[in-house]
Protein backbone atom coordinates (compact mmCIF):
# COMPACT_ATOMS: atom_id res chain seq x y z
CA UNK A 1 0.00 0.00 0.00
CA UNK A 2 1.35 3.38 -1.02
CA UNK A 3 0.39 5.17 2.14
CA UNK A 4 2.02 2.99 4.77
CA UNK A 5 5.32 3.32 2.94
CA UNK A 6 5.19 7.05 3.46
CA UNK A 7 4.50 7.04 7.17
CA UNK A 8 6.93 9.35 8.84
CA UNK A 9 7.98 9.13 12.46
CA UNK A 10 6.72 12.60 13.25
CA UNK A 11 3.19 11.74 12.06
CA UNK A 12 0.67 11.76 14.82
CA UNK A 13 -1.98 10.07 12.66
CA UNK A 14 -1.17 6.54 11.67
CA UNK A 15 -2.86 4.92 8.74
CA UNK A 16 -3.25 1.51 10.34
CA UNK A 17 -6.22 2.64 12.39
CA UNK A 18 -8.19 3.95 9.39
CA UNK A 19 -10.63 1.55 7.74
CA UNK A 20 -10.74 1.47 3.99
CA UNK A 21 -14.21 2.00 2.56
CA UNK A 22 -13.17 1.52 -1.05
CA UNK A 23 -10.26 -0.49 -2.34
CA UNK A 24 -9.35 0.16 -5.95
CA UNK A 25 -7.14 -2.49 -7.46
CA UNK A 26 -5.67 -2.08 -10.93
CA UNK A 27 -8.77 -0.41 -12.32
CA UNK A 28 -8.99 0.89 -15.87
CA UNK A 29 -12.11 2.47 -17.34
CA UNK A 30 -12.96 2.35 -21.03
CA UNK A 31 -15.57 4.17 -23.06
CA UNK A 32 -15.91 1.71 -25.97
CA UNK A 33 -12.37 1.63 -27.32
CA UNK A 34 -11.14 4.72 -25.57
CA UNK A 35 -9.23 4.10 -22.38
CA UNK A 36 -10.15 7.00 -20.13
CA UNK A 37 -8.11 6.06 -17.09
CA UNK A 38 -5.64 3.30 -16.55
CA UNK A 39 -4.37 0.99 -13.81
CA UNK A 40 -5.45 2.91 -10.75
CA UNK A 41 -4.54 1.63 -7.29
CA UNK A 42 -5.78 3.48 -4.27
CA UNK A 43 -8.04 3.20 -1.27
CA UNK A 44 -10.49 5.58 0.32
CA UNK A 45 -10.60 5.70 4.09
CA UNK A 46 -13.64 6.12 6.26
CA UNK A 47 -14.47 9.56 7.65
CA UNK A 48 -11.79 11.21 5.57
CA UNK A 49 -11.94 13.61 2.70
CA UNK A 50 -9.99 12.30 -0.28
CA UNK A 51 -9.35 14.70 -3.14
CA UNK A 52 -8.67 13.86 -6.77
CA UNK A 53 -6.71 16.63 -8.45
CA UNK A 54 -5.12 17.02 -11.83
CA UNK A 55 -5.48 18.78 -15.18
CA UNK A 56 -8.52 18.45 -17.43
CA UNK A 57 -9.17 15.20 -19.19
CA UNK A 58 -7.17 12.96 -16.91
CA UNK A 59 -9.99 10.75 -15.77
CA UNK A 60 -10.71 12.15 -12.30
CA UNK A 61 -14.47 12.39 -12.81
CA UNK A 62 -14.50 9.05 -14.57
CA UNK A 63 -12.75 7.51 -11.59
CA UNK A 64 -15.18 9.18 -9.21
CA UNK A 65 -18.16 7.81 -11.08
CA UNK A 66 -16.92 4.27 -10.78
CA UNK A 67 -17.55 4.47 -7.04
CA UNK A 68 -21.30 4.72 -7.49
CA UNK A 69 -21.60 2.93 -10.80
CA UNK A 70 -22.78 6.03 -12.63
CA UNK A 71 -20.63 4.99 -15.57
CA UNK A 72 -23.08 2.13 -16.08
CA UNK A 73 -25.45 4.70 -17.55
CA UNK A 74 -23.05 5.55 -20.35
CA UNK A 75 -23.29 3.24 -23.30
CA UNK A 76 -20.04 1.46 -24.01
CA UNK A 77 -18.52 2.18 -20.61
CA UNK A 78 -16.72 -0.71 -18.97
CA UNK A 79 -14.19 -1.35 -16.28
CA UNK A 80 -11.39 -3.79 -15.69
CA UNK A 81 -9.81 -4.51 -12.32
CA UNK A 82 -11.51 -4.74 -8.97
CA UNK A 83 -13.29 -2.17 -6.90
CA UNK A 84 -14.49 -3.25 -3.49
CA UNK A 85 -16.78 -1.44 -1.11
CA UNK A 86 -16.45 -2.61 2.50
CA UNK A 87 -14.89 -5.73 1.06
CA UNK A 88 -17.70 -6.46 -1.42
CA UNK A 89 -17.00 -6.38 -5.14
CA UNK A 90 -19.07 -3.39 -6.29
CA UNK A 91 -19.34 -4.75 -9.81
CA UNK A 92 -20.23 -8.28 -8.82
CA UNK A 93 -23.06 -10.03 -10.64
CA UNK A 94 -25.46 -9.90 -7.70
CA UNK A 95 -24.91 -6.24 -6.86
CA UNK A 96 -27.75 -3.86 -7.78
CA UNK A 97 -26.46 -0.48 -9.02
CA UNK A 98 -29.60 1.23 -7.73
CA UNK A 99 -28.94 -0.06 -4.22
CA UNK A 100 -25.32 1.05 -4.56
CA UNK A 101 -26.38 4.59 -5.41
CA UNK A 102 -28.62 4.79 -2.38
CA UNK A 103 -25.63 4.16 -0.15
CA UNK A 104 -23.16 6.22 -2.14
CA UNK A 105 -24.53 9.63 -2.95
CA UNK A 106 -23.35 12.16 -5.49
CA UNK A 107 -23.25 15.93 -5.80
CA UNK A 108 -22.63 17.31 -9.27
CA UNK A 109 -20.68 20.20 -10.67
CA UNK A 110 -23.62 22.31 -11.67
CA UNK A 111 -26.34 22.40 -9.01
CA UNK A 112 -29.25 20.37 -10.37
CA UNK A 113 -32.25 20.62 -8.06
CA UNK A 114 -35.45 19.09 -9.35
CA UNK A 115 -38.04 21.59 -10.59
CA UNK A 116 -40.09 20.91 -7.48
CA UNK A 117 -40.44 22.55 -4.10
CA UNK A 118 -37.54 22.58 -1.64
CA UNK A 119 -39.43 20.10 0.51
CA UNK A 120 -40.12 17.73 -2.36
CA UNK A 121 -36.50 17.83 -3.48
CA UNK A 122 -35.33 16.52 -0.13
CA UNK A 123 -38.24 14.13 0.26
CA UNK A 124 -37.64 12.63 -3.19
CA UNK A 125 -35.03 10.08 -2.13
CA UNK A 126 -36.71 8.93 1.10
CA UNK A 127 -40.02 8.56 -0.74
CA UNK A 128 -38.36 6.19 -3.20
CA UNK A 129 -36.70 4.04 -0.58
CA UNK A 130 -39.63 4.15 1.80
CA UNK A 131 -38.95 5.23 5.34
CA UNK A 132 -40.56 4.92 8.73
CA UNK A 133 -39.12 8.22 9.87
CA UNK A 134 -41.39 11.25 9.74
CA UNK A 135 -40.80 13.10 6.48
CA UNK A 136 -40.82 16.55 8.06
CA UNK A 137 -38.06 15.39 10.42
CA UNK A 138 -36.01 14.03 7.56
CA UNK A 139 -36.32 17.30 5.64
CA UNK A 140 -35.34 19.37 8.65
CA UNK A 141 -32.42 17.12 9.56
CA UNK A 142 -31.05 17.17 6.01
CA UNK A 143 -31.37 20.91 5.62
CA UNK A 144 -29.73 21.44 9.02
CA UNK A 145 -26.89 19.18 8.00
CA UNK A 146 -26.36 21.22 4.86
CA UNK A 147 -26.49 24.50 6.71
CA UNK A 148 -29.56 25.62 4.81
CA UNK A 149 -32.35 25.19 7.34
CA UNK A 150 -32.41 28.71 8.77
CA UNK A 151 -32.54 30.26 5.33
CA UNK A 152 -35.40 28.21 3.92
CA UNK A 153 -37.42 26.91 6.85
CA UNK A 154 -40.21 29.40 6.19
CA UNK A 155 -40.52 28.62 2.52
CA UNK A 156 -40.18 24.89 2.17
CA UNK A 157 -42.96 24.79 -0.37
CA UNK A 158 -41.34 27.36 -2.63
CA UNK A 159 -39.70 26.17 -5.83
CA UNK A 160 -36.10 25.09 -5.46
CA UNK A 161 -35.26 26.96 -8.64
CA UNK A 162 -35.75 30.26 -6.84
CA UNK A 163 -32.66 29.70 -4.67
CA UNK A 164 -29.26 31.16 -5.42
CA UNK A 165 -26.50 28.99 -6.87
CA UNK A 166 -24.84 28.40 -3.54
CA UNK A 167 -28.14 27.61 -1.88
CA UNK A 168 -29.07 25.22 -4.67
CA UNK A 169 -25.82 23.34 -4.24
CA UNK A 170 -26.39 23.07 -0.51
CA UNK A 171 -29.87 21.84 -1.32
CA UNK A 172 -28.34 19.17 -3.54
CA UNK A 173 -26.07 18.17 -0.67
CA UNK A 174 -29.08 18.01 1.64
CA UNK A 175 -30.95 15.95 -0.94
CA UNK A 176 -28.06 13.52 -1.17
CA UNK A 177 -27.82 13.13 2.60
CA UNK A 178 -31.56 12.68 3.09
CA UNK A 179 -31.26 8.98 2.30
CA UNK A 180 -28.50 8.47 4.88
CA UNK A 181 -25.70 7.43 2.58
CA UNK A 182 -22.39 6.08 3.70
CA UNK A 183 -20.28 8.01 1.22
CA UNK A 184 -20.63 11.31 -0.58
CA UNK A 185 -19.00 11.76 -3.96
CA UNK A 186 -18.57 15.36 -5.05
CA UNK A 187 -17.66 16.20 -8.61
CA UNK A 188 -16.22 19.74 -8.57
CA UNK A 189 -19.07 20.91 -6.36
CA UNK A 190 -17.87 24.50 -6.09
CA UNK A 191 -16.72 25.25 -9.62
CA UNK A 192 -19.98 26.97 -10.51
CA UNK A 193 -20.08 29.01 -7.30
CA UNK A 194 -18.65 32.29 -6.05
CA UNK A 195 -15.87 32.29 -3.40
CA UNK A 196 -18.17 32.93 -0.48
CA UNK A 197 -20.53 30.09 -1.37
CA UNK A 198 -17.45 27.94 -1.98
CA UNK A 199 -16.15 28.73 1.49
CA UNK A 200 -19.43 27.72 3.08
CA UNK A 201 -19.45 24.41 1.28
CA UNK A 202 -15.89 23.72 2.29
CA UNK A 203 -16.83 24.38 5.93
CA UNK A 204 -19.74 22.04 5.45
CA UNK A 205 -17.49 19.30 4.11
CA UNK A 206 -15.23 19.50 7.13
CA UNK A 207 -18.26 19.16 9.42
CA UNK A 208 -19.75 16.34 7.39
CA UNK A 209 -16.55 14.33 7.55
CA UNK A 210 -17.67 13.17 11.01
CA UNK A 211 -20.65 11.34 9.58
CA UNK A 212 -19.70 10.53 6.01
CA UNK A 213 -16.77 9.53 3.87
CA UNK A 214 -16.16 12.13 1.21
CA UNK A 215 -14.38 11.92 -2.13
CA UNK A 216 -14.06 15.16 -4.02
CA UNK A 217 -12.84 15.93 -7.51
CA UNK A 218 -11.51 19.44 -7.76
CA UNK A 219 -9.72 21.65 -10.21
CA UNK A 220 -8.79 23.94 -7.40
CA UNK A 221 -5.55 22.78 -5.80
CA UNK A 222 -5.88 25.16 -2.92
CA UNK A 223 -9.27 23.71 -2.13
CA UNK A 224 -7.77 20.24 -2.02
CA UNK A 225 -5.05 21.52 0.27
CA UNK A 226 -7.62 23.19 2.54
CA UNK A 227 -10.09 20.39 3.04
CA UNK A 228 -8.69 17.00 2.16
CA UNK A 229 -6.86 14.45 4.29
CA UNK A 230 -5.38 12.58 1.38
CA UNK A 231 -4.93 13.62 -2.23
CA UNK A 232 -4.57 11.67 -5.45
CA UNK A 233 -2.88 13.41 -8.35
CA UNK A 234 -3.91 12.29 -11.84
CA UNK A 235 -2.51 13.32 -15.17
CA UNK A 236 -3.05 12.42 -18.81
CA UNK A 237 -0.33 10.93 -20.95
CA UNK A 238 -0.03 9.66 -24.45
CA UNK A 239 -0.40 5.91 -24.56
CA UNK A 240 2.20 4.62 -27.04
CA UNK A 241 0.06 1.59 -27.95
CA UNK A 242 -3.13 3.40 -28.87
CA UNK A 243 -1.96 6.95 -29.57
CA UNK A 244 -4.59 8.29 -27.17
CA UNK A 245 -4.27 10.45 -24.11
CA UNK A 246 -5.12 8.25 -21.17
CA UNK A 247 -5.55 9.29 -17.58
CA UNK A 248 -3.38 7.73 -14.89
CA UNK A 249 -2.72 8.04 -11.20
CA UNK A 250 0.65 9.57 -10.56
CA UNK A 251 0.82 9.90 -6.81
CA UNK A 252 -1.44 9.28 -3.86
CA UNK A 253 -0.48 10.40 -0.38
CA UNK A 254 -1.44 12.45 2.63
CA UNK A 255 -2.33 15.94 1.50
CA UNK A 256 0.46 17.57 3.47
CA UNK A 257 3.01 15.31 1.84
CA UNK A 258 1.70 15.85 -1.67
CA UNK A 259 1.83 19.59 -1.34
CA UNK A 260 5.02 20.03 0.62
CA UNK A 261 7.08 17.08 -0.53
CA UNK A 262 5.82 15.45 -3.71
CA UNK A 263 7.77 12.42 -4.83
CA UNK A 264 7.02 12.61 -8.54
CA UNK A 265 8.28 15.38 -10.76
CA UNK A 266 4.95 15.60 -12.58
CA UNK A 267 3.17 16.23 -9.29
CA UNK A 268 5.63 18.92 -8.42
CA UNK A 269 5.19 20.60 -11.79
CA UNK A 270 1.44 20.64 -11.44
CA UNK A 271 1.48 21.93 -7.90
CA UNK A 272 3.90 24.69 -8.61
CA UNK A 273 1.88 25.72 -11.58
CA UNK A 274 4.36 24.83 -14.27
CA UNK A 275 1.54 23.14 -16.13
CA UNK A 276 -2.11 22.55 -15.54
Amino acid sequence: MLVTERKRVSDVETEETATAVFEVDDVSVYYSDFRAVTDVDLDINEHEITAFIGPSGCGKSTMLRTFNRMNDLIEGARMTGTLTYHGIDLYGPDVDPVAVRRRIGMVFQKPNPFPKSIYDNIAFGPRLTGTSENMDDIVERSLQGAGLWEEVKDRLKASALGLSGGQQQRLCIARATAVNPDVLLMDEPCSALDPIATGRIEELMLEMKESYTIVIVTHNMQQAARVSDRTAFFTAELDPNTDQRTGLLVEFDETTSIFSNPRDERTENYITGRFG
Partner: protein
Amino acid sequence: MAAITVELREQLRTRRSADARGQVFRGLLMLALLVAFAALIAVLYTAITRAWPILSDRPLDFLTSNTSQSPEKAGVFQGIKGSVLLAGIVAAVAFPIGIGGAIYLEEYAGDTFFSRFLQVVVRNLAGVPSIVYGLLGLAVFVQSLGGLTGGRSVISGGLTLACLVLPVVIITTQEAIRAVPSELRQAGYGIGATHWEVIRSIVLPSAAPGILTGTVLSIARAVGEAAPILVVGAVSGFFQTGTLSFLEQTQSFFTALPMQIFAFTKQPTQTWGAHAAGASVAILLVVFAMNSVAIYMRARLDKKLRK
Protein backbone atom coordinates in the same frame (compact mmCIF):
# COMPACT_ATOMS: atom_id res chain seq x y z
CA MET B 1 -3.32 62.13 -30.96
CA ALA B 2 -5.95 64.25 -32.67
CA ALA B 3 -5.53 62.32 -35.91
CA ILE B 4 -6.13 58.99 -34.18
CA THR B 5 -9.27 60.30 -32.53
CA VAL B 6 -10.69 61.48 -35.82
CA GLU B 7 -10.01 58.15 -37.49
CA LEU B 8 -11.39 56.27 -34.50
CA ARG B 9 -14.51 58.38 -34.51
CA GLU B 10 -14.93 57.65 -38.19
CA GLN B 11 -14.58 53.91 -37.57
CA LEU B 12 -17.01 53.91 -34.69
CA ARG B 13 -19.68 55.79 -36.58
CA THR B 14 -22.90 53.92 -37.33
CA ARG B 15 -22.81 52.16 -40.64
CA ARG B 16 -25.92 53.36 -42.34
CA SER B 17 -25.92 50.76 -45.10
CA ALA B 18 -25.74 47.75 -42.82
CA ASP B 19 -28.41 49.24 -40.64
CA ALA B 20 -30.66 49.89 -43.62
CA ARG B 21 -30.49 46.25 -44.65
CA GLY B 22 -31.52 45.25 -41.15
CA GLN B 23 -34.43 47.62 -41.21
CA VAL B 24 -35.64 46.35 -44.58
CA PHE B 25 -35.55 42.81 -43.27
CA ARG B 26 -37.39 43.81 -40.17
CA GLY B 27 -40.05 45.42 -42.35
CA LEU B 28 -40.41 42.33 -44.53
CA LEU B 29 -40.75 40.05 -41.54
CA MET B 30 -43.39 42.26 -40.02
CA LEU B 31 -45.19 42.23 -43.36
CA ALA B 32 -45.17 38.44 -43.34
CA LEU B 33 -46.72 38.46 -39.88
CA LEU B 34 -49.36 40.96 -40.96
CA VAL B 35 -50.27 38.86 -44.00
CA ALA B 36 -50.75 35.80 -41.81
CA PHE B 37 -52.76 37.82 -39.37
CA ALA B 38 -54.82 39.33 -42.18
CA ALA B 39 -55.65 35.88 -43.51
CA LEU B 40 -56.95 34.88 -40.11
CA ILE B 41 -58.97 38.06 -39.80
CA ALA B 42 -60.38 37.52 -43.30
CA VAL B 43 -61.57 34.04 -42.37
CA LEU B 44 -63.19 35.28 -39.19
CA TYR B 45 -64.76 38.25 -40.95
CA THR B 46 -66.19 36.18 -43.77
CA ALA B 47 -67.60 33.59 -41.42
CA ILE B 48 -69.16 36.10 -39.06
CA THR B 49 -70.65 38.36 -41.70
CA ARG B 50 -72.16 35.46 -43.65
CA ALA B 51 -73.49 33.92 -40.47
CA TRP B 52 -74.88 37.22 -39.28
CA PRO B 53 -78.54 36.47 -40.12
CA ILE B 54 -78.43 33.52 -37.77
CA LEU B 55 -76.03 34.94 -35.20
CA SER B 56 -78.15 38.04 -34.72
CA ASP B 57 -81.45 36.22 -34.85
CA ARG B 58 -81.22 32.93 -32.97
CA PRO B 59 -77.66 32.02 -31.98
CA LEU B 60 -78.47 29.82 -29.01
CA ASP B 61 -81.27 28.09 -30.81
CA PHE B 62 -78.92 27.33 -33.69
CA LEU B 63 -76.45 25.69 -31.37
CA THR B 64 -79.05 23.60 -29.61
CA SER B 65 -81.32 22.51 -32.45
CA ASN B 66 -81.13 19.33 -34.40
CA THR B 67 -80.97 19.00 -38.16
CA SER B 68 -84.19 19.87 -39.88
CA GLN B 69 -85.72 20.26 -43.33
CA SER B 70 -86.68 23.84 -42.69
CA PRO B 71 -83.93 26.44 -42.53
CA GLU B 72 -85.59 28.36 -39.72
CA LYS B 73 -85.38 25.44 -37.35
CA ALA B 74 -82.16 23.68 -38.45
CA GLY B 75 -79.28 23.74 -35.98
CA VAL B 76 -75.88 22.21 -35.42
CA PHE B 77 -76.45 20.52 -32.09
CA GLN B 78 -75.93 17.05 -33.52
CA GLY B 79 -72.76 18.27 -35.19
CA ILE B 80 -71.45 19.57 -31.89
CA LYS B 81 -72.41 16.33 -30.20
CA GLY B 82 -70.62 14.33 -32.88
CA SER B 83 -67.49 16.48 -32.76
CA VAL B 84 -67.34 16.25 -28.98
CA LEU B 85 -67.74 12.47 -29.11
CA LEU B 86 -65.04 12.23 -31.76
CA ALA B 87 -62.72 14.38 -29.67
CA GLY B 88 -63.37 12.15 -26.68
CA ILE B 89 -62.60 8.96 -28.57
CA VAL B 90 -59.45 10.46 -30.07
CA ALA B 91 -58.27 11.49 -26.61
CA ALA B 92 -59.05 8.13 -25.04
CA VAL B 93 -57.33 6.15 -27.78
CA ALA B 94 -54.54 8.27 -29.23
CA PHE B 95 -53.15 9.78 -26.05
CA PRO B 96 -52.28 6.67 -24.04
CA ILE B 97 -50.98 4.86 -27.11
CA GLY B 98 -49.11 7.87 -28.47
CA ILE B 99 -47.56 8.97 -25.19
CA GLY B 100 -46.71 5.40 -24.22
CA GLY B 101 -45.12 4.76 -27.58
CA ALA B 102 -43.09 7.94 -27.37
CA ILE B 103 -41.84 7.07 -23.87
CA TYR B 104 -40.78 3.67 -25.16
CA LEU B 105 -38.95 5.15 -28.16
CA GLU B 106 -37.15 7.76 -26.11
CA GLU B 107 -36.37 5.86 -22.95
CA TYR B 108 -36.23 2.17 -23.65
CA ALA B 109 -35.55 1.54 -27.31
CA GLY B 110 -31.84 1.51 -27.98
CA ASP B 111 -30.26 3.14 -30.98
CA THR B 112 -30.87 0.10 -33.18
CA PHE B 113 -31.74 -0.01 -36.85
CA PHE B 114 -35.27 -1.05 -35.96
CA SER B 115 -35.94 1.88 -33.63
CA ARG B 116 -34.50 4.35 -36.10
CA PHE B 117 -36.67 2.78 -38.78
CA LEU B 118 -39.72 3.21 -36.55
CA GLN B 119 -38.89 6.88 -36.05
CA VAL B 120 -38.71 7.45 -39.80
CA VAL B 121 -42.01 5.64 -40.31
CA VAL B 122 -43.75 7.72 -37.64
CA ARG B 123 -42.48 10.96 -39.11
CA ASN B 124 -43.66 9.94 -42.56
CA LEU B 125 -47.07 8.92 -41.28
CA ALA B 126 -47.49 12.39 -39.81
CA GLY B 127 -47.43 13.75 -43.34
CA VAL B 128 -49.85 11.33 -44.95
CA PRO B 129 -52.94 13.14 -46.33
CA SER B 130 -55.91 12.78 -44.04
CA ILE B 131 -58.15 11.27 -46.70
CA VAL B 132 -55.83 8.28 -46.85
CA TYR B 133 -56.52 7.74 -43.16
CA GLY B 134 -60.20 7.90 -44.13
CA LEU B 135 -59.70 5.00 -46.50
CA LEU B 136 -57.85 3.11 -43.78
CA GLY B 137 -60.75 3.73 -41.44
CA LEU B 138 -63.23 2.56 -44.03
CA ALA B 139 -61.39 -0.67 -44.68
CA VAL B 140 -60.47 -1.56 -41.12
CA PHE B 141 -62.95 0.00 -38.73
CA VAL B 142 -66.07 0.15 -40.88
CA GLN B 143 -65.74 -3.05 -42.83
CA SER B 144 -63.41 -5.54 -41.15
CA LEU B 145 -64.25 -4.60 -37.58
CA GLY B 146 -67.82 -3.60 -38.40
CA GLY B 147 -69.23 -6.01 -35.88
CA LEU B 148 -67.45 -4.28 -33.02
CA THR B 149 -67.70 -0.71 -34.12
CA GLY B 150 -71.15 -0.75 -35.65
CA GLY B 151 -69.92 0.03 -39.15
CA ARG B 152 -70.29 3.66 -40.17
CA SER B 153 -70.47 4.94 -36.63
CA VAL B 154 -68.92 7.63 -34.52
CA ILE B 155 -66.69 4.94 -33.01
CA SER B 156 -65.22 4.19 -36.42
CA GLY B 157 -64.86 7.89 -37.07
CA GLY B 158 -63.13 8.45 -33.76
CA LEU B 159 -60.74 5.55 -34.24
CA THR B 160 -59.87 6.78 -37.74
CA LEU B 161 -59.10 10.24 -36.42
CA ALA B 162 -57.09 8.72 -33.59
CA CYS B 163 -54.88 7.00 -36.17
CA LEU B 164 -54.53 10.33 -37.94
CA VAL B 165 -53.22 12.24 -34.93
CA LEU B 166 -51.23 9.38 -33.39
CA PRO B 167 -47.96 10.21 -35.24
CA VAL B 168 -48.21 13.84 -34.17
CA VAL B 169 -48.79 12.91 -30.54
CA ILE B 170 -45.79 10.57 -30.63
CA ILE B 171 -43.54 13.19 -32.18
CA THR B 172 -44.49 16.04 -29.86
CA THR B 173 -44.18 13.81 -26.81
CA GLN B 174 -40.76 12.64 -27.95
CA GLU B 175 -39.60 16.22 -28.38
CA ALA B 176 -40.91 17.15 -24.95
CA ILE B 177 -39.07 14.23 -23.33
CA ARG B 178 -35.88 15.06 -25.19
CA ALA B 179 -36.04 18.60 -23.89
CA VAL B 180 -35.66 17.45 -20.29
CA PRO B 181 -32.05 18.30 -19.34
CA SER B 182 -29.83 15.31 -18.72
CA GLU B 183 -28.57 16.82 -15.47
CA LEU B 184 -31.99 16.22 -13.95
CA ARG B 185 -31.87 12.58 -14.90
CA GLN B 186 -28.33 12.32 -13.51
CA ALA B 187 -29.55 13.77 -10.24
CA GLY B 188 -32.30 11.18 -10.16
CA TYR B 189 -30.00 8.26 -10.86
CA GLY B 190 -27.46 9.64 -8.40
CA ILE B 191 -30.02 9.41 -5.62
CA GLY B 192 -30.66 5.79 -6.42
CA ALA B 193 -33.79 5.95 -8.53
CA THR B 194 -34.48 3.17 -11.02
CA HIS B 195 -35.03 3.98 -14.68
CA TRP B 196 -38.78 3.90 -14.32
CA GLU B 197 -38.69 6.06 -11.19
CA VAL B 198 -36.64 8.65 -13.04
CA ILE B 199 -39.14 8.63 -15.91
CA ARG B 200 -42.18 8.79 -13.68
CA SER B 201 -41.01 11.34 -11.10
CA ILE B 202 -38.60 13.52 -13.03
CA VAL B 203 -38.86 13.23 -16.79
CA LEU B 204 -42.62 13.10 -17.27
CA PRO B 205 -43.45 15.96 -14.88
CA SER B 206 -40.84 18.11 -16.61
CA ALA B 207 -42.07 17.15 -20.06
CA ALA B 208 -45.72 17.59 -19.13
CA PRO B 209 -46.23 21.11 -20.53
CA GLY B 210 -44.91 20.08 -23.93
CA ILE B 211 -46.87 16.85 -23.97
CA LEU B 212 -50.03 18.68 -22.97
CA THR B 213 -49.68 21.26 -25.70
CA GLY B 214 -49.13 18.55 -28.29
CA THR B 215 -52.14 16.52 -27.23
CA VAL B 216 -54.63 19.35 -27.07
CA LEU B 217 -53.49 20.70 -30.42
CA SER B 218 -53.99 17.21 -31.87
CA ILE B 219 -57.55 17.14 -30.69
CA ALA B 220 -58.16 20.56 -32.18
CA ARG B 221 -56.85 19.25 -35.48
CA ALA B 222 -58.95 16.09 -35.32
CA VAL B 223 -62.10 18.09 -34.67
CA GLY B 224 -61.47 20.11 -37.81
CA GLU B 225 -60.83 17.24 -40.19
CA ALA B 226 -63.53 16.65 -42.79
CA ALA B 227 -62.08 14.19 -45.32
CA PRO B 228 -61.58 11.16 -43.06
CA ILE B 229 -65.04 11.31 -41.52
CA LEU B 230 -66.64 11.90 -44.91
CA VAL B 231 -65.09 8.69 -46.16
CA VAL B 232 -65.91 6.74 -43.03
CA GLY B 233 -69.47 7.69 -43.66
CA ALA B 234 -70.90 10.57 -41.77
CA VAL B 235 -73.00 11.16 -44.86
CA SER B 236 -76.25 10.68 -43.12
CA GLY B 237 -75.97 14.03 -41.43
CA PHE B 238 -77.79 13.02 -38.31
CA PHE B 239 -77.60 10.93 -35.19
CA GLN B 240 -80.29 8.39 -34.74
CA THR B 241 -81.89 9.52 -31.54
CA GLY B 242 -85.39 8.50 -30.70
CA THR B 243 -85.40 5.16 -29.00
CA LEU B 244 -81.71 4.31 -29.09
CA SER B 245 -79.54 4.26 -25.94
CA PHE B 246 -76.32 6.23 -25.87
CA LEU B 247 -74.18 3.18 -26.56
CA GLU B 248 -76.37 2.18 -29.48
CA GLN B 249 -76.18 5.71 -30.84
CA THR B 250 -72.42 5.56 -30.92
CA GLN B 251 -72.63 2.48 -33.05
CA SER B 252 -75.00 3.83 -35.69
CA PHE B 253 -75.12 6.75 -38.07
CA PHE B 254 -73.38 9.87 -36.97
CA THR B 255 -72.44 13.37 -37.97
CA ALA B 256 -69.96 16.03 -36.96
CA LEU B 257 -69.49 19.76 -37.51
CA PRO B 258 -67.29 19.54 -40.64
CA MET B 259 -69.89 17.22 -42.15
CA GLN B 260 -72.69 19.61 -41.41
CA ILE B 261 -70.80 22.52 -42.93
CA PHE B 262 -70.33 20.43 -46.06
CA ALA B 263 -74.00 19.47 -46.13
CA PHE B 264 -75.14 23.07 -45.68
CA THR B 265 -73.00 24.28 -48.59
CA LYS B 266 -74.84 21.88 -50.87
CA GLN B 267 -78.13 23.58 -50.15
CA PRO B 268 -79.51 26.58 -52.08
CA THR B 269 -77.84 29.76 -50.87
CA GLN B 270 -80.96 31.93 -50.59
CA THR B 271 -82.50 30.10 -47.70
CA TRP B 272 -79.51 28.19 -46.37
CA GLY B 273 -76.73 30.74 -46.92
CA ALA B 274 -76.07 31.59 -43.34
CA HIS B 275 -76.09 28.05 -42.02
CA ALA B 276 -72.75 26.91 -43.37
CA ALA B 277 -71.16 30.07 -42.08
CA GLY B 278 -72.89 29.62 -38.74
CA ALA B 279 -71.61 26.08 -38.43
CA SER B 280 -68.14 27.40 -39.33
CA VAL B 281 -68.35 29.88 -36.50
CA ALA B 282 -69.38 27.03 -34.21
CA ILE B 283 -66.41 24.91 -35.18
CA LEU B 284 -64.06 27.88 -34.83
CA LEU B 285 -65.38 28.43 -31.33
CA VAL B 286 -64.78 24.79 -30.43
CA VAL B 287 -61.22 24.85 -31.79
CA PHE B 288 -60.39 28.19 -30.19
CA ALA B 289 -61.74 26.95 -26.87
CA MET B 290 -59.56 23.85 -27.01
CA ASN B 291 -56.47 25.82 -27.93
CA SER B 292 -57.14 28.27 -25.11
CA VAL B 293 -57.38 25.38 -22.68
CA ALA B 294 -54.01 24.14 -23.95
CA ILE B 295 -52.42 27.57 -23.58
CA TYR B 296 -53.88 28.05 -20.12
CA MET B 297 -52.82 24.64 -18.82
CA ARG B 298 -49.37 25.09 -20.27
CA ALA B 299 -48.99 28.52 -18.70
CA ARG B 300 -50.01 27.16 -15.31
CA LEU B 301 -47.61 24.24 -15.52
CA ASP B 302 -44.82 26.51 -16.71
CA LYS B 303 -45.40 28.81 -13.77
CA LYS B 304 -45.29 25.87 -11.37
CA LEU B 305 -42.06 24.57 -12.82
CA ARG B 306 -40.18 27.83 -13.18
CA LYS B 307 -40.36 29.69 -9.91
